[in-house]
């Protein structure tokens, strides 16, 4: 049933053995001098899912994704991306990927439409240019030069160039940096639409709300290893962790941790006669779980 050799009780929940994988990584290693940037990463991405890769800066996220994208070579490990070893990927393989890198400041002298049209020409089966520009919300900036776009608009152009080739697998490296809240919501809708159309997506992000909303599964990477991987609702035992109920009784703010928050609230309602003042039930957010995972990992290894 399982594909990884994980211990019982591990935070790494493997995918079913018969799953159709877009990406399969086993024992990936890469060192820069004495620094082990990636130190034994195992990772599966199922076709059609959105997998969010979380982790502190320097944890090995970028090195891992850039090895998958064919930018960097690896020291050891097995990697297949769309059935092919990225180190041997040819142009046909590359045409099936879409890559949205972190910061870039190129294309300043070209208009949005010129850039997207130009990049469409690299692919055998591109999406219609106008459609992609609309989808990323740049229709009104079609004729604007790259230099004249705001940070968020530039990022949308990057996304458009990642989408134009009609990729089976899309890499998004911190795609919403510089977006205002409204633009982020719109971007989330776009990603949901892509997922609905069958695109596999590897999303690297620092925004945990983004991972929670978009990701089918979340992988947490720290010190060059994946330390937890599961659906966002269950990551790191989140679904089994205690809930905290907050309320006010008399002049006093009170709280209690419990496995049975519903029962506690019902008891309170009865005891306090109806409406419970300042009632709140708090479950650990993905961010709480993430931070405790990262903390725990650094305690364990230091």
């Amino acid at each position, binding site marked *: 049933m399982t594909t990884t050799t994980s211990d019982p009780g591990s935070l790494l929940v493997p995918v079913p053995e018969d799953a159709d994988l877009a990406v399969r990584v086993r024992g990936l290693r890469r060192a*820069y001098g004495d620094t082990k940037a990636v130190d034994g990463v195992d990772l599966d991405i199922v076709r059609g899912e959105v997998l969010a890769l979380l982790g502190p800066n320097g944890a090995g996220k970028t090195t891992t994704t850039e090895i998958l*994208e064919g*930018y*960097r*070579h690896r020291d050891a490990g097995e990697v297949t991306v769309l059935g092919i070893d990225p180190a041997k990927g040819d*142009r*046909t393989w*590359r*045409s*099936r*990927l879409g*890559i949205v*890198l972190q*910061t*870039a*400041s*190129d*294309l*300043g*002298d*070209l208009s949005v439409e*010129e850039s997207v049209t*130009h*990049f469409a*020409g*690299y*692919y*055998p*089966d591109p*999406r219609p240019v106008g*459609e*992609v520009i*609309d*989808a*990323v*919300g740049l229709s009104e900036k079609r004729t604007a030069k790259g230099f004249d776009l705001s940070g968020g608009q530039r990022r*949308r152009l990057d996304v458009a*160039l990642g*989408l134009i*080739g*009609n990729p*089976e697998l899309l890499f998004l490296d911190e795609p919403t940096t510089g977006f205002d809240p409204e633009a982020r919501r*719109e*971007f989330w*809708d*776009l990603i*949901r*639409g*892509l997922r609905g*159309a*069958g*695109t596999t997506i590897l999303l690297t992000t620092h925004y945990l709300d983004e991972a929670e909303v978009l990701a089918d599964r979340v992988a947490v990477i720290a010190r060059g290893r994946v330390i937890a991987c599961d659906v966002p609702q269950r990551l790191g035992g989140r679904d089994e962790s205690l809930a905290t109920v907050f309320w006010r009784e008399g002049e006093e703010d009170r709280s209690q941790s419990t496995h049975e928050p519903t029962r506690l609230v019902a008891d309170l309602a009865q005891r306090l006669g109806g409406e419970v003042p300042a009632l709140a039930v708090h479950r650990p957010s993905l961010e709480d779980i993430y931070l405790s995972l990262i903390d725990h990992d650094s305690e364990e290894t230091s």
Partner: protein
Amino acid sequence: MSTSTLTREPAGAASVPGPLALGLRRIRIELKVFFRDRNSAVWNFALPVLLLVIFGAVFGSQDIGPGITFAQYFVAGMIASGVVYTSFQNLAIAIPMERDDGTLKRLQGVPMPKVSYFIGKIGLVFVAYVAQVTLLIIVGVAFYHLHLPSDLGRWFTFVWASVLGLVACTLCGIAFSVVPKNGKGASAVVSPIVLVLQFTSGVFFVFSQLPHWMQIFASIFPLKWLTQAMRSVFLPDSAQSIEVAGQWELGRCAAMLALWCVIGLVMSLVFFRWNKRGQN
């Protein structure tokens, strides 16, 4: 962002576009970007003409040989320099900037072979050179008694010298693009090299009047041979008397430029990188 229209068709049987088709695509976009960028307009068009005007005004009327003014000699040298400006200097500065601003990384991520990128650069260099040389020739003919050759043989020399020089210097520029640590500092590394070659190769001074060791130094590099070939095109044959060898030595010019094409090709294949050092 409306998502209703974005669909993903299963990949069709269409195959990736060929390297040559993508190369032509690169030429179009390179030209568009080049001619829109103010920096490149200054470096590649205004500066050579400015130098021509200044040197022409100061030394232009000095006779340096039988019926030859320095201005005529200098225009030929500037046309040869135009080869180096538009190819070597242009690329050795522009490519590190493209490495810095993410252009190269983005291109590395699309299904395009390196050779298409090189075709784009070569196309850009040829067009920029033709534009620059046309400008220099117009200024030279209008103000500095430059005589356009009337026989086909000289035009033939002009064409092969330009093509060999451009290919050699383009390849050397691509190879040299790994030397500057970043785009900002690139012109500070590249421009002095071009300037030293110009001083020692018979552009700013009459080559035969330079110290012997300087002549030997310059003879290693292509610009010296390029200036000599261009003088054979634009100066009368009587001007051979002020050449070091007393003749144009066109065979040696062609051989040295061809040799630099080979050196440039080997160096660009060995040294060219998409990434900054340590990023692969």
